[in-house]
């Protein structure tokens, strides 16, 4: 019997019939369709997140100084979500866009995975892995050597902030070592503290009682664009909105651009950039002239309102005379571009309002304002008598903690500490200021410094990115022969360091979080480890203690075993509350009464800052001691730079030392960033004047630098103004961040405040030329 053609066909027929009656085709179809649901393994495996027990850990977010309570959802040991902590006095369950993206700081790219030592040239990106003990010993050997050579004072430290135990540890390290050069990165809080010191005689930050204020006059503060402790202000804003519907609250935003804050305000006052102080004094003029000020407070608890006579018999000008003479609405209208009637109307509204509040600090408050500008805006609060009142302002004291044992200074340390600060803060040049980061580049690049810096420690700051006139700062810092970074991430500054001693990130460490800027009640938050460290990193406090113990001659000042025991000791009786609640709030706090509220020599609120005179600032012009508008002279001539450039600060782009996580970049509109192009906003009128259309490529030139941008036409910008988003243009980190857009600090230079010496640049002169 042979198979033959027919036989074969019959066989196939039979096989076909049989297969149909077997599970094979049906089961195969089912399996293949299941496979095709995920294309398992082709080209990648879509991850299946492992299940497990849920643990919720409470901590405090440290990505900005806002101090929000967070609760981190964990599946076994993986942190999978950050949420706002319910019931926390600052944010009560809410969270900001950066905080909610915080897991990227932990698990995302550009982490420094262990101590690194530079192998190639500076900034080349070649590193050698090194053990912690070797790194500590090499660095302390180097620092010991500098110390032995009598140059202890030439070592500087740049810190992101100056309050809290970690900055205190760095300060202590320098004090024991023999250097006065602890430099903290500036913010508007610096000016505010200085202003309070002079006007109220207190070392304190301004507490704004936003929650209870009902007429908010904001001088360019990005109240809902990231100012202060962002979530807290959002919440206050929502309360204002509820009251505003009933006609019980009003927000007035004075700003050259229709920011989110301006858009949400009840009234937007588009002012000529940089003239806010003039407007504030214009308001003061109306209030004083119409006698709408709080007579009880001004007459009994203020000094320098009326003219006064000093001990030598000389008559000095008071606020009243100066304001009435120099800041009539006509004059102010000319300066600010706001009509006389509007100035008068707003001033009356403010003076008449129940619980009015004037707020300052432009944008997020990352750039200090001029001292006299702050005084001018703050004076409005004084005139309506809302100092230390509900819905007003108050000088907020630090939360008291256990003092550390004194620093054991040897002869070298004492000699070093007697040297003047390199940045000239506290010297004859700028006697009232504590720290002047912005002075570094000028002094170093021109060789005019009192000495040369030989080593730099950087923590919690990224000056290579965040400082105005980025190129000059880079040039200056590059000239320091030895730089140690304590960054958790490979940021621009770490890139230029000689050693990186990576710190734990926000979710891996203990740290105290002092009262955030602008808060109305003293509070300390406790950030604590939520997960085990992902990499071979250390707590920065432990690193500093280890350095202190191994640098020759200063070990006696570092007696603690580790940072945790130091923190516990410092917090003393508050520790248990901190561990239990996550924060310690001064529940009994209430602002002092007017009669005892001012620590100035006169015991009164001082419009006339006699403190400046006592500090050694001599001027024949009384205006130099009073709140005042003094135009900030921007670099460049108006002919070549006809436009004014201002920054756009937004919650969706983190522009500080903590870089923007890709989640945030994703939310940014395509009229801010498209591919790798950044857009600047211009009014269509301005665009037409310069022949620019929507999306046109242009060169943005300022005296500081030039960058290629595209233009976005926006009716919300004053004609003649160009607005550039901040927070883009990183050159470090990973591919998700670097190379996107340009860094606004490349085109914004520095402007020195004549009294404080702080950099008060709120913008720059600029030109915008289309590229065909």
């Amino acid at each position, binding site marked *: 019997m042979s198979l033959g053609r027919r036989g074969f066909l019959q066989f196939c027929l039979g096989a076909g019939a049989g297969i149909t009656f077997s599970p094979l085709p049906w089961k195969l179809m089912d399996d293949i369709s299941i496979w095709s649901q995920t294309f398992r393994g082709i080209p990648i495996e879509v991850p299946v997140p492992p299940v497990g027990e849920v643990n919720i850990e409470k901590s405090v977010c440290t990505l900005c100084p806002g101090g929000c309570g967070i609760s981190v959802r964990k599946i076994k040991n993986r942190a999978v979500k950050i949420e706002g902590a319910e019931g926390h006095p600052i944010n009560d369950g809410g969270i900001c866009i950066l905080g909610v993206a915080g897991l990227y700081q932990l698990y995302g790219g550009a982490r420094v995975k262990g101590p690194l030592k530079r192998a190639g040239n500076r900034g080349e990106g070649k590193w050698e892995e090194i053990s912690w003990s070797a790194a500590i010993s090499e660095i302390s050997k180097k620092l010991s050597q500098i110390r032995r050579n009598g140059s202890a004072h030439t070592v500087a430290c740049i810190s992101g902030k100056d309050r809290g135990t970690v900055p205190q540890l760095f300060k202590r390290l320098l004090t024991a070592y023999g250097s006065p050069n602890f430099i903290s990165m500036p913010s508007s809080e610096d000016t505010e503290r200085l202003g309070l010191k002079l006007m109220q005689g207190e070392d304190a930050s301004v507490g704004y009682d936003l929650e209870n204020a009902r007429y908010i006059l904001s001088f360019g503060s990005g109240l809902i664009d990231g100012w202060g402790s962002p979530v807290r202000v959002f919440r206050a804003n929502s309360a204002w909105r509820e009251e505003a519907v009933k006609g019980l609250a009003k927000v007035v935003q004075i700003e050259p651009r229709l920011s989110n804050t301006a858009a949400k305000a009840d009234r937007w006052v588009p002012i000529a950039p940089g003239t806010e102080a003039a407007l504030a004094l214009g308001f003061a003029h109306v209030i004083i002239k119409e006698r709408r000020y709080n007579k009880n407070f001004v007459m009994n608890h203020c000094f320098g309102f009326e003219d006064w006579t000093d001990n030598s018999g000389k008559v000095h000008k008071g606020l009243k005379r100066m304001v009435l003479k120099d800041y009539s609405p006509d004059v102010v209208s000319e300066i600010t571009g706001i009509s006389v009637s509007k100035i008068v109307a707003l001033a009356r509204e403010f003076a008449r309002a129940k619980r009015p509040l004037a707020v300052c600090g432009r944008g997020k408050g990352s750039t200090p304002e001029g001292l006299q500008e702050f005084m001018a805006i703050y004076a409005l609060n004084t005139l309506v008598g809302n100092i230390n009142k509900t819905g007003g302002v108050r000088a907020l004291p630090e939360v008291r903690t256990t003092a550390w044992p004194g620093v054991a200074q040897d002869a070298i340390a004492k000699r070093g500490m007697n040297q003047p600060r390199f940045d000239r803060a506290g010297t004859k040049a700028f006697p009232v200021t504590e720290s002047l980061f912005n002075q570094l580049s000028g002094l170093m690049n021109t060789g005019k410094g009192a000495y040369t810096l030989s080593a730099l420690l950087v923590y919690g700051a990224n000056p290579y990115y965040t400082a105005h006139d980025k190129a000059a700062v880079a040039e200056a810092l590059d000239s320091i022969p030895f730089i140690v970074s304590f960054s958790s991430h490979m940021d621009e500054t770490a890139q230029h360091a000689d050693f990186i001693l990576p710190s734990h990130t926000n979710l891996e460490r203990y740290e105290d979080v002092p009262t955030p800027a602008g808060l109305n009640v003293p509070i300390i938050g406790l950030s604590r480890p939520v997960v085990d460290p992902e990499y071979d990193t250390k707590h920065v406090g432990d690193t500093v203690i280890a350095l202190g113990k191994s640098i020759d001659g200063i070990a006696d000042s570092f007696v603690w075993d580790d940072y945790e025991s130091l923190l516990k000791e410092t917090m003393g009786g508050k520790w248990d509350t901190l561990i239990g609640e996550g924060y310690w709030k001064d529940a009994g706090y209430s602002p002092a009464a007017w009669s005892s509220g001012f620590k100035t020599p006169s015991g009164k609120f001082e419009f006339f800052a006699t403190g400046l005179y006592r500090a050694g600032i001599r001027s024949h012009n009384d205006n130099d001691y009073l709140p005042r508008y003094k135009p900030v002279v921007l670099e460049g001539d108006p002919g070549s730079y006809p436009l004014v450039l201002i920054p756009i600060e937004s919650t969706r782009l983190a522009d500080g030392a903590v870089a923007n996580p890709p*989640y945030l970049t994703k939310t940014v509109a395509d009229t801010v*960033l498209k591919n790798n192009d950044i857009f600047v906003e211009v009014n269509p009128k301005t665009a037409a004047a310069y022949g620019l259309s929507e999306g046109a490529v242009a060169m943005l030139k300022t005296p500081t630098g030039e960058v290629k941008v595209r233009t976005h036409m926006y009716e919300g910008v004053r004609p003649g103004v160009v607005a550039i988003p901040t927070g883009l243009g990183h050159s470090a980190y990973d591919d998700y961040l670097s190379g996107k857009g340009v860094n606004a600090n490349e085109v914004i230079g520095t402007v020195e405040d004549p009294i404080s010496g702080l950099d008060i640049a709120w913008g720059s002169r600029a030109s915008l030329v289309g590229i065909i």
Partner: protein
Amino acid sequence: MKEEHKEGAHGHKEKYKYGMVIDLDKCTGCGACMVACMTENNVPFRKDESNKLVSTAWMRVFKATNGKSYPDIDVCYFPRPCMHCEGEHGHAPCVSVCPATATDYNYETGIVSQIYTRCFGCRYCMAACPYHARYFNWWDPVWPDKMEKALSPDVSPRMRGVVEKCSFCFHRFQRARDHAYAEGRREIREDEYQTACTQACPADAIIFGDLNNPEHKVYKLKKSPYAFRLLERLGTNPKVYYLSTRSWVRRAGDNYLAGERSK
């Protein structure tokens, strides 16, 4: 409130009807809801997300202006989750066109589902959705470095070739229900089930709850004279309400003829 089983015209049991009221006066456009949603729902990010047509955001905040020129211009932000349209008796625009039954209307909760493993990526639903609330996965997700560790097991990560959208964090409903069951309850309290965006919103602008339950905040808010819905006149019967005291904003919520009166 006592459990209420409303018998709809369609004969389905209507237990809950979850919905949202978003107060546009309070919304600051900060974007926290967008990121809270992404991190809650395992939505990935790519190196370049500036092409918004292919950039997935279950919750997206749109910016609208009143069209006037300086200085009369005004801006308002519209957070846009999935509207979970009820249409008539659950005939949401997307549900009725899906050839794979990968999306359906849940009469028990009023939530429109999206089942990724069922979807084969024809994108009819995207064409049908008037709110652009649906997104197609043009790529498999890539999680850089250790970001995979941050993935939540409550939400299944999507593969390329399927459509995804906001689920009103339905897994949170499931979680809340499990918790209630473990305690021997059948009812879920208002605070037990809240979406990630609602919870995160620092301005408390998003309110979420059962639109059928007079004790829930949304019940009262949706009846506000300032309440409106987006493209209401299409008959999509969306479950997301907006509040605004600004009339131009309310008018921007739908398409009106030049001279036509709006609410």
